[in-house]
């Protein structure tokens, strides 16, 4: 009886743990198999423990070049998209202008369009404009779809901000630029950071749109993994996958700690 009621009381915790486990098992498998020394080309069966891949993460030809390209595109695309998206979000959230409703609607189009459609139509566009397939084309495409996500993230934050705060800043003698830097930007920062991180991870793992617009000299990390999967996946893929997962985890935890501290201070 005591045991049954104990279980009943903690049912929610069990369910949460089960879901969490389901979500994390693939990552655990990836991490575990990064220590494998596989027999043959495929890293699907456990053979024996080895730290070879961790010692030589660039040991597979092309893997680190592709990782570098993905990081460069990811950082550039998320930076540009964050700046543009933040401006769009502030304009939508703070000002009345002609075409505001249309902008509000159109901003969702890149998110709603299937990637296959977007990738192929972008390729057509780039060919028409004479922009060669490759890193530049990929970057432009990534900026394009990342902007929407940044706009949505920042706009949600801006909507919760009291417009009186900006009026108060102006009232206290702050120029429009000072108001933006000292009041609007710091208050919108959590939304901007969330948008930037989202943009980076969307850019970093995009495959379909990237593949349409890539050239043989612009192989991103997801393309490398996809290509490798046809011929045999090197253990280094698991190593890099694990590192990326841990980095993402670190960001999320850091964000939580930061916002908790802020909550406590507030």
């Amino acid at each position, binding site marked *: 009886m005591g045991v049954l009621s104990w279980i009943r009381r903690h049912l929610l915790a069990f369910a949460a743990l089960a879901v969490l486990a389901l979500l994390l098992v693939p990552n655990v498998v990836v991490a575990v198999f990064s220590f494998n020394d596989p027999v043959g080309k495929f890293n699907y069966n456990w053979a024996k423990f080895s730290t070879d891949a961790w010692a030589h993460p660039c040991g597979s030809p092309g893997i680190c070049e592709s990782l570098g390209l993905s990081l460069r595109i990811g950082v550039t695309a998320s930076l540009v998209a964050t700046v543009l998206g933040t401006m769009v979000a502030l304009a939508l959230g703070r000002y009345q202008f002609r075409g505001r409703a249309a902008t509000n609607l159109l901003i969702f189009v890149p998110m709603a369009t299937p990637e296959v459609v977007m990738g192929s139509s972008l390729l057509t566009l780039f060919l028409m404009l004479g922009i060669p397939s490759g890193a530049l084309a990929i970057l432009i495409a990534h900026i394009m779809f990342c902007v929407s996500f940044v706009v949505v993230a920042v706009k949600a934050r801006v909507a919760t901000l009291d417009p009186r705060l900006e009026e108060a800043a102006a009232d206290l*003698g702050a120029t429009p630029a000072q108001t933006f830097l*000292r009041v609007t930007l710091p208050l919108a920062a959590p939304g901007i950071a969330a948008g930037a991180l989202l943009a980076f991870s969307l850019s970093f793992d995009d495959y379909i749109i990237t593949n349409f617009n890539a050239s043989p000299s612009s192989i991103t990390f997801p393309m490398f993994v996809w290509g490798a999967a046809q011929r045999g996946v090197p253990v280094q893929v698991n190593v890099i996958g694990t590192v990326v997962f841990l980095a993402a985890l670190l960001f999320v935890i850091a964000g939580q700690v930061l916002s908790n501290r802020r909550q406590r201070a507030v």
Partner: protein
Amino acid sequence: MAATRTSGDLRLAGLTKEFDTFTAVHPMDLVIPEGSFFALLGPSGCGKTTTLRMVAGLEQPTAGRIHIGDTEITDTKAHQRNVNTVFQSYALFPHMNVLENVEFGLRRRGDKNATVKAKEALELVQLGEVAKKKPAQLSGGMQQRVALARAVVNRPDVLLLDEPLGALDLKLRRQMQIELKRIQQEVGLTFIHVTHDQEEAMTMADTIAVMNAGRIEQLGDPATLYEHPASTFVANFLGQSNLLKVTVTGPARNGEVPVTAYDTALTVAADHVPGDAKEVWLGVRPEKLRMGEHGGPNRLHGTVSDVSFTGVATQYLVRMPWGKELTVVQQNDGSGRARPGEDVTISWAAEHGFALDAAQAADAGVEEEG
């Protein structure tokens, strides 16, 4: 001395604000003397906040001019004006601590002593010990005082208060009213206080402008507005009034004008009657009416329909033979109380009545009071 005083007066000339569908502020002329505590009083939607926002530079007037002293500020932006506002929602910056909030204005104009001055301002509002806290950690009353310190510290030419006590509970509000008055006297700045609370305006302000539907109905000190309202709106919005429709029956004699109300002869002080009016509203404040005959020569007879005892006073509703109920408030001075159903005489002196043009609605300003 006189020259420096007038140089700081706030002058509004023909100030107008029209929105797409309505006129929020009709052309308004107003001079607010430097160093005064001025209240804009009126029901919500009367244009008082719009007026305030135009002075702050947060709203662009459709027409008209704004001067502070000899300087015209009509076309300057909010951040260029030496005018500060205490917002109704306080609008404290949540990401800055209390001290940083108060320093904000000083830092924008590059004041080297910003921290020292901000700390002094916090002492002025008795919040020196919470300088390092974030606004959200403070109670509503404390946030209100931070907002006040943040504005006062800049020593603005004009300090605007937009319903600053609206979010506080009654007890705190009374306390802050006294506090605000003290601070205004201490720093000697011009305060313009926007409120819909007539008691708050009367407690604090030297001069009150009663606004209704985008216009100033009457301007004056609290006692004048209360004793000699110029319209039924003011009579009802500032306190309560009993209004009787009366006909002037003859010329003034001994400073009193004879009138009749429902065949009863009454008198009103001659200087309380507008011009040569024939039909007027005769108004008497409830506390000026007396139960019994010792109030004065004006007498009406009626039946007590309701008695409510409030401690310091008793409020009666007395039904007149023609159906209207008059409100009578009697101080709790130890005399006996009338009971419901009792036939009573109520009386008042001629100088306690005021007369208003009968063309106005008797209930103007009644609903809005709040």
